[in-house]
């Protein structure tokens, strides 16, 4: 998707140039066509929407329980949240389908849907024993007389995922598709690669949004999470918001009582301080990855993405973040323009890591 903001910026740049250059720019446009500005912005919450679905734990073994939490956002304070309909999708998505889930799971009910016990915005489930055969690297059991079926492909972080779908029980609600990362081990790997992977790979930890501050280069005032005491922003003001998360050590350390993170190479045996009750890092975690292209196990860092939502005003970017190459930086900035009239505004900030982990917080702002 071309970023409309960038496209607009480019056109403004051309407008300042000499008329002769417009001709050349016309040629440029001719090469690529002219992309229209489409209406709407993902960051403006103008209808009820599921903004995030968090699995806890973030990476789950087969037969293990998982708790889901949906961040269901309403555009106005007086809107009533519908009850959520939760279901695991047990059907594998056909190879030819470009979407994230089998189409048969985007229905109110069906044989491929396993309804979940839920309470409000949370639900619980237990992953099936064969989840790594259906969605993971283990080949599905062949039908009698047929050749072995193809295992699922991993995502770009080497993960496999159990899909689920959530929907409000009202007619207008959209389907939201969530995923739980399954601990299935690497796909097709040599024994040495499997050993190396198992030794160094640690399950994903959901990231945690430490805080969001206003004017990070000045007074860095934290946004208020209290509806009663909202942050104050002048109407129409452009403010820089900074979302930050924890810095993660690249190398695990067990010295001096450990670093609180059960990292690569650590286990209960060699670092009981960190791994008796193992926790990962809540920022951009290092992890190992079986690169199917290079056919070797390589170290990586999680890229971090921040999604910004508000009931009013506008963000410069719907999403921001840090790419893997930029993972040493543990914050991301965005510019929010407050609505031009005084109002109470709700903001949500969702932090996602590369491996499917999710964290979120919401804030209150009053513009005057």
């Amino acid at each position: 998707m071309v970023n409309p903001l960038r496209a607009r910026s480019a056109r403004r740049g051309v407008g300042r140039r000499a008329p002769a250059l417009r001709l050349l720019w016309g040629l440029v446009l001719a090469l690529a066509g002219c992309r229209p500005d489409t209406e709407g912005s993902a960051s403006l919450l103008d209808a009820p929407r599921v903004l995030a679905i968090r699995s806890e734990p973030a990476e789950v073994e087969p037969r293990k329980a998982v708790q889901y939490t949906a961040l269901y956002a309403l555009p106005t304070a007086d809107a009533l949240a519908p009850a959520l309909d939760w279901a695991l999708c047990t059907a594998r998505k056909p190879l030819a389908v470009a979407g994230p889930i089998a189409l048969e799971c985007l229905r109110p009910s069906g044989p491929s849907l396993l309804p979940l016990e839920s309470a409000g915005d949370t639900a619980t489930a237990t992953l099936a024993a064969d989840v790594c055969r259906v969605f993971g690297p283990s080949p599905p059991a062949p039908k009698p007389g047929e050749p072995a079926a193809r295992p699922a492909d991993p995502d770009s972080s080497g993960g496999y995922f159990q899909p689920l779908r959530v929907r409000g029980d009202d007619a207008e609600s959209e389907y939201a598709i969530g995923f739980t990362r399954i601990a299935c081990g690497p796909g097709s790997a040599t024994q040495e690669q499997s050993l190396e992977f198992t030794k160094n790979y640690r399950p994903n930890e959901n990231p945690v949004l430490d805080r969001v501050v206003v004017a990070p280069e000045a007074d860095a005032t934290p946004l208020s999470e209290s509806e009663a005491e909202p942050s104050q922003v002048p109407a129409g003001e452009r403010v820089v918001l900074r979302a930050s998360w924890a810095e993660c050590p690249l190398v695990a350390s067990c010295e001096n009582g450990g670093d609180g993170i059960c990292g690569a190479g650590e286990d209960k045996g060699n670092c009981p301080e960190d791994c008796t009750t193992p926790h990962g890092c809540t920022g951009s975690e290092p992890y190992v990855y079986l690169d199917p292209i290079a056919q070797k196990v390589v170290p990586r860092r999680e890229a971090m993405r921040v999604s910004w939502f508000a009931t009013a005003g506008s963000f410069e970017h719907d999403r921001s973040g840090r790419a893997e190459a930029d993972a040493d930086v543990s914050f991301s900035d965005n510019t929010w323009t407050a609505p031009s009239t005084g109002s109470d505004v709700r903001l949500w900030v969702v932090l996602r890591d590369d491996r499917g982990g999710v964290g979120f917080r919401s804030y209150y702002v009053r513009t005057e």
Partner: protein
Amino acid sequence: MKRLILTLCVAAVASSAEGVARADAKDSGTSAAPAASHGVLTKAPRLKHFVEAELPEGVKVLSKVAVVLKLSIAADGSVSAAEVAESGGAAYDEPARLAALKLAFEPAEIDGVPSAVRITYRYELSPAAKAQVAPTTAHFTGQVHDQGGKPLAGVRVELDTGESAVSGDDGRFDMPEVAPGNHPVMLSGPTFTPIGTEETFQAGKTYDASYEVQVTAVAVGAEERADFEIVVVATRLGSKVTATEVSSEQGARVAGTGGDVVKVVENLPGVARSTVGSGQLVVWGAGGQDTRVYVDGVRVPVLYHEGGFRSIVHSDLVRSVELQPGGYGSSFGRGIGGLVTVGLKPLDEKGLHGSVQLDAIDASASVRGSINDKWHFAVAGRRSHLDWVLKRFTSDDVGEFVPIPKYWDGQARVTYAPREGETLELGSLTSSDRIQRSLVASDPAESKSESKATDFSRVYFRYRRETEKETSTVTPYIGVDHSKIVSQFGALPAELRSDSNIYGLRANYQTSPESWLTVNVGLDAEVSVSSLFRGGSVLTPPREGDVRVFGQLPPDLVNADTWSVTVAGLAPYVEGDFAPLGDTLHLIPGFRVEPQVVQVSRTTPAQPGIPPVGAIREDMALDPRVALRWNATDRITAKAAFGIYHQPPQAEDLTAVFGNPKLGPATARHYLVGGAFRLTKPLSLEVTSFYSNSSGLVVRNPLASPAAGAALVQTGQGRAYGTQFLLRYDLVEHFFGWLSASLIRSERTDPDGSWRLFDFDQSFVFTALGSYDLGRGFEVGSRFRYSTGYPRTPVYAASIDERVDGYSPMFGPHNSIRIPGFYSFDVRLAKRFKFAQKSEFELYLDVQNVTNHSNAEEIVYNYNYTKRAYITGLPILPVVGGKLTW
């Protein structure tokens, strides 16, 4: 200054006079110099009456003799003086000079007034005919007239045997001794573009022909014509079936082509309009990869550079381009779609010729010449500089937003003619394309980069031998194809590398054992050995039939495979042209047998510790083909054709991870019927209806858990049918043009067996174009195009993919809506400046989409798919360029 103009103009018509004055086998050619002092030569002298030289007794002409004379032609057309400039032999000079004094010309005109001029005249004397004991030759006579029925004098009628005659004042010509059999006949003159036909002669019989030619107003020199003698042929059924032709001179004047004659093909009926920047050739509803491209018998992977701005062969080297959308003969195969064959010019020019061209997009140059009578050469090249231009005049990050194609190509040829009728040629073709772009976004998942490299090279050797009845051609060639696409969408990588070595051989022997029969036999062999690597998502790159929207990110799934493929095909073929009723009826049956072998290195995805197991697949393609042409009357021709075609699988699809190593050939059947009708003298209508069906098409496996190594299956079917029309006004006086319309429906099957529209279906394509010669070197041309938009699949809802925080579309019926129709009005203005003999500079302005209409090229949606908008294509696009030719 006026004097200079006079000199230029006289020089310009000098070679024109040559075409006029070459009267017959014993006649001559000229070059001229002015006798008048001032003014512009508005009409060249033209030979009206030729006089045989009377040789002294005992003097005979044993081989062709040429005496070059300088003639002074009076204002009444008589020759007032003649002197020998270049001796043809002492015994012949004086008789030639005396005969020349009796020649009669239509007087030259300067500023519209008959005036005296001096010309250089080549008087040729040929051996006298031998006495015939029995009739072993045919008598070929006839008359040439213009479209109004007026006899044309000075038209040279020439056979492939070298025999020729020039029409007299009454338009008649005469060749008393012509070898029996089929002979191509070429008519040339100063006032029309050379045209060709074919006649069948029987010993002892007289063939009285009547030829009508389309006379133009502007005399074009013979050398000039040779430079532009490129012919675009469409809907050619077979070697003897009527073809629709567009001369290169017309092609170069069509608005929107940028002077690239090959691009005229896009304006012919049956060809879909390609999306801006794609350059894809979709003919008769077949996929772009199903249409094969050959350059002088050497298969090349593409016809156009990236973006479709230019073809991969310099126009100066191109003799002809043939587009056969379907139903072609047995000598070609391995493709279930159309066929494009680019013929290169024979290298027989004397002296040094060439051109230099420059515009905002690229620059090119060509040089052609002769070392001596036997050795000739040609070199041409082109390089784009659009990226360089943009960097100089726009911001540095232009390439981040749009793909700027960078390309170059080169051709080199050397020919050697050891003896008459034999030619040896060594040639090479090479082409390279690069595209690189990147977009850095605040969201790391939306940052993307893409680089694409496509290269190919071919080296070929050709032996060609032509005799009176036989033609043999052997063309072995080798080459390499290289392509590499590397992209990164956020964290999702995609890479496809392919390196192929190509070994090919085409051998053809044509003979005419009887006057009513021509037989063509040959061998078409090709072996390609490819090494490939692919990594990324199974759905990247997208393929025909994928249900998706433009710009939709592929699923975040990664896999990789390395494999190698050898595809070999050895196809002997035979084709006969039976003409039992002379030129009235041609029945052309043909048959092609092609054993195909496909070897793959791996049949299942790589498993650690398990050695790969390869496979060899053998298929036998039996392809019967037949074409029929019936010239019912002088005005009506009917035609029909049928053929079966096979196409081996693409190496890119024979992967155990992303494709299927067990794929076999796809099959298609083409049926077509049509007719050509000459409505008036310059106006003709050609109608062709066709139906094609194809099976064994490669599609994605629809199963949720397909078998390992079966991501693609061969269950797809296709069908296309339609009718195309071409209403054409041939070049008369100052104008030419045509209207073409195609009504075509092309469909494919979905996995459930239901039929849906082909992704590149365009149900209606209409083109109207014309060009008008304003005189004094000014030309204006215009083109109007309309085409139905491509089909697309509507989005009726969307779900939120929380993992990527983005909406995912939910689709309605496959390909059930269309992008809005396209229309564009283009204009071309050109001015030619002649500044030396055989040299000119052309300055042109080609403006596309003059009305600045916003044509929708693709559908895009807002973030949650509730709003639809369109990516629009070309705004008004003026391109100024120049070409120097000598």
